[in-house]
């Protein structure tokens, strides 16, 4: 039966060794009237049939293999070198558990250590953990760190309107019973106006870099005001953008979080991705999740081990600040392999391709009749386009031309009806961009 290897003879031998006659005898502790219920599920299938069914389900989707994708909004279509996927499929990585036994897990442990190093370097922080579930939950965990840093005395959290709407929603879900005031994201504000909300009760201010609308805003002045008030500044960053823009650490962030999906992880309809979490040393003992440190074995050989373990739920139980256990280990490994392969030059080059192509597209669309592009601030690879018609209509036209169009901002921001958020990456050739511009022009008329 599928992956169960037992033969009839073996089953009989095992039952005899246990001292029972049938497998059913092993379940007598289960209340008899509820034992062995019917399951209303389909019959099992062969691998051949399962494979065909999965193919059919997959092909019922409009995906990047068939369409040019101009949609980002928190999940980005980038090129992943073939070696990433091949290495990730190695059973020694794929089918290992959390490295609680370091003598048998040095591969996973060293890879996490290298991941922590790369994330710290990219973000300009002192340390990173082994991952959270995604960028949104990393931000929710940063809120907890800030609350702990104030010893739960401060209760106000200021979020920028430019943070991904889902991330802000997740912060509210996580902290719905913690008696917090979560504010600042009800309307567009520049950072001066955001800073005006800071008071003595403020534990954390969070902004995005680039923000949800693609803008890259300098937050140095904001950081100073946050620190003057004794609060912490968390920056939600896109790691691809960090290849060319100053690290948030250099601009004054205390914690940098975000989603590592852009680093070699497929779109996969929303997951699994990887939430990265990095911090200045001052908060490192307050952060949740696994952390790997360097040490030596009993012969003095360099080795790696999970460290600062007493923070974690299996030891601290109800006094732990987070319940996280399983994280996104394999996706952190994917990001590590990706960053290694792309390296210093490759990642910078990919980020520049995104930048130049997005700016080319934005300039051409801005010249179209009926469309306007938000201007005046630096942006990375996303920008907001005001359309002459509802976004759904524009996207329907783009669809017919073989493209997945921009994200309809009206869904999350009522003030932005008829505005789409377009994303251009290294995956989009000049031809595709020109086709997009042409199709937008057609759609307007």
């Amino acid at each position, binding site marked *: 039966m599928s992956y169960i290897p037992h033969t009839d003879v073996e089953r009989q031998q*095992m039952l005899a060794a246990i001292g029972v006659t049938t497998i059913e005898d092993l379940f007598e502790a289960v209340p008899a009237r509820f034992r062995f219920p019917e399951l209303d*599920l389909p019959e099992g299938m062969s691998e051949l049939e399962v494979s065909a069914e999965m193919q059919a389900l997959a092909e019922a989707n409009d995906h990047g293999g068939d369409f040019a994708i101009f949609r980002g*909004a928190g999940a980005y279509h980038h090129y992943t070198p073939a070696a990433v996927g091949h290495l990730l499929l190695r059973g020694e990585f794929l089918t290992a558990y959390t490295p609680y036994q370091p003598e048998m897990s040095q591969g996973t442990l060293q890879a996490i250590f290298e991941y922590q190093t790369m994330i710290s370097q*990219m973000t300009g922080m002192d340390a990173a953990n082994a991952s959270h579930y995604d960028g949104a939950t990393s931000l929710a965990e940063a809120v907890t760190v800030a609350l702990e840093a104030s010893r739960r005395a401060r209760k106000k959290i200021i979020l920028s309107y430019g943070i991904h709407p889902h991330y802000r929603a997740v912060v509210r879900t996580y902290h719905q019973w913690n008696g917090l005031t979560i504010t600042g994201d009800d309307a567009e504000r520049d950072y001066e106006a955001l800073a005006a909300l800071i008071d003595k009760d403020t534990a954390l201010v969070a902004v995005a870099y680039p923000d949800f609308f693609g803008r890259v805003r300098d937050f140095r002045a904001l950081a100073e005001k946050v620190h003057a008030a004794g609060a912490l500044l968390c920056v939600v960053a896109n790691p691809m953008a960090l290849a060319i823009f100053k690290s948030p650490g250099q601009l004054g962030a205390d914690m940098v979080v975000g989603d590592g999906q852009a680093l070699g992880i497929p779109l996969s309809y929303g997951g699994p991705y990887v939430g990265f979490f990095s911090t200045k040393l001052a908060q490192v003992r307050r952060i949740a999740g696994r952390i790997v440190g360097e040490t030596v074995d009993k012969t003095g050989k360099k080795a790696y081990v999970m460290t600062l373990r007493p923070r974690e*739920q299996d030891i601290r139980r109800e006094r732990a600040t987070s319940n996280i256990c*399983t994280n996104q280990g394999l996706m952190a490994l994917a990001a590590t392999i990706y960053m290694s392969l792309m390296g210093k030059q490759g990642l910078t080059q990919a980020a520049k391709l995104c930048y130049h192509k997005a700016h080319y597209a934005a300039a051409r669309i801005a010249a179209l009749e009926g469309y306007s592009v938000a201007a005046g601030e630096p942006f990375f690879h996303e920008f907001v386009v005001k359309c002459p018609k509802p976004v759904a209509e524009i996207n329907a036209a783009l669809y017919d031309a073989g493209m997945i169009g921009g994200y309809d901002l009206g869904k999350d921001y009522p003030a932005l009806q008829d505005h789409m958020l377009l994303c251009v990456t290294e995956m989009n050739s000049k031809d595709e961009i020109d086709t997009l511009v042409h199709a937008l022009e057609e759609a307007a008329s």
Partner: protein
Amino acid sequence: MTETIYDKSVPGRVGVVLPKVDVPTSDLPGDLLRDNLDLPEVSELQVVRHFTNLSGLNHAIDKGFYPLGSCTMKYNPKINEDAARLPGFAQLHPLSDDDGSQGALALMHTLQGWLAEIAGFKGASLVPAAGAQGELAGILMIRAYHADRGDSRRTKILVPNSAHGTNPATVSMAGLSVVELPSDENGDVDLIALRAACDDTVAGMMITVPSTLGVFEEHILDVIEAVHGCGGLMYMDGANMNALLGIVKPGELGFDVMHYNLHKTFSTPHGGGGPGCGAVAVGEKLTPFLPGPIAVIAEEAEHEDDAPLYALRMPAKSIGRLKAFQGNFGMHVRAYAYIRTYGAAGLREVSRHAVLNANYVRSRLRGVYTMPYDRICAHEFVTEGRFEGVESVHALDISKRLMDFGIHPPTNYFPLIVHEALLIEPTETEDKATLDAFVDVMLQIASEAKENPTLLTEAPHVTPVGRLDEVRAAKELVLCCRPLPDWAHTQAGD
């Protein structure tokens, strides 16, 4: 130890060639540009060798036996990996219009239905990323349910002392307080203590079935009745669901909510610590509160043979979003393929054989290893890693010695209520020969403990590294292998 990837870096080396810029270039904002990106400069071959060699330092299911209790380290079928990598799934944008993601939505909707059916519930959400997040979802739903009825007195969650650490940590995250319940001499919840704790301040109870001691709670119906009797709801930690497929439906026993670990029961790979999926299933009372979005049927099909129109929706009184987008979809694909492969009858065989294997190993180790709860077990059992008259040998030493035989140790020192605990879970995918070889090694180690205990206390002997200095790791705290640039240090002094 292996050099780090940074040690292999040579300035100017490029691992990947990207296309040339095919559009006119634009100016970059000078005042915001970074001057140094400290990533390795290595070739593709160096990267392939580095990570291939690192992988060789791991133990894994694909390499050998992994009887890690409460983790269900069963075989992860390869077809499921291929399925998740199909372009139609892997290259599907999470904010696709519902019209353009009907295949993915159909898969999610079907899987929600299967997970509800397997556990005897009415609805399910696939959003939670891991078991711990499923627990958070469950407790937030319980809290929201009471709040919705205008009952704000219920601030306590009952948790047995044998529980996973995630249970009490979850309760705290949801702003509730934990009341820890003792276990009786059989490893079951102490019913007298439970009944004494049940009053109108109890929001609910979290319990693992079968328990973390690997036994079916004998009084489970009494436990549920007591908690329901005082108005509380019952949460089942489904970490051990591999013992229950087609054996019993938690919803029929009276549970109100549970989480699955798709990465345990439904064999999505553990990946060295994740990703997982902690899907939650609920009864009627809690369906409006499910975390969203979930897949729903937006329009029924007009004809019998047609597919309906699926859509993503937030449930009416949802506790909210737990993640960006709609969950670890790649895990949904793998679990779907797994359940489709086994079917109804096959899933029951999974649990029957998981329980058969655990009892077989338990029976063969009895007499040499102490069984604190000497009864038929579920899919795992707990034993004591110590021997009379050999004070120097602990569960840790037995664990480390197992490594010398290419076997991953059982979970040790959990559950906390068992002295020197070793929690052994063979899973159903191991054959009798593997189990016999494991037992033989365990018996040999028991002899060694008496004859030559240093063999154990100094183990492991053949792994890539020996026992580690964990105190030094925490004290010296080396978390990165590269120095930060100068500006970081000047700023730290500000």
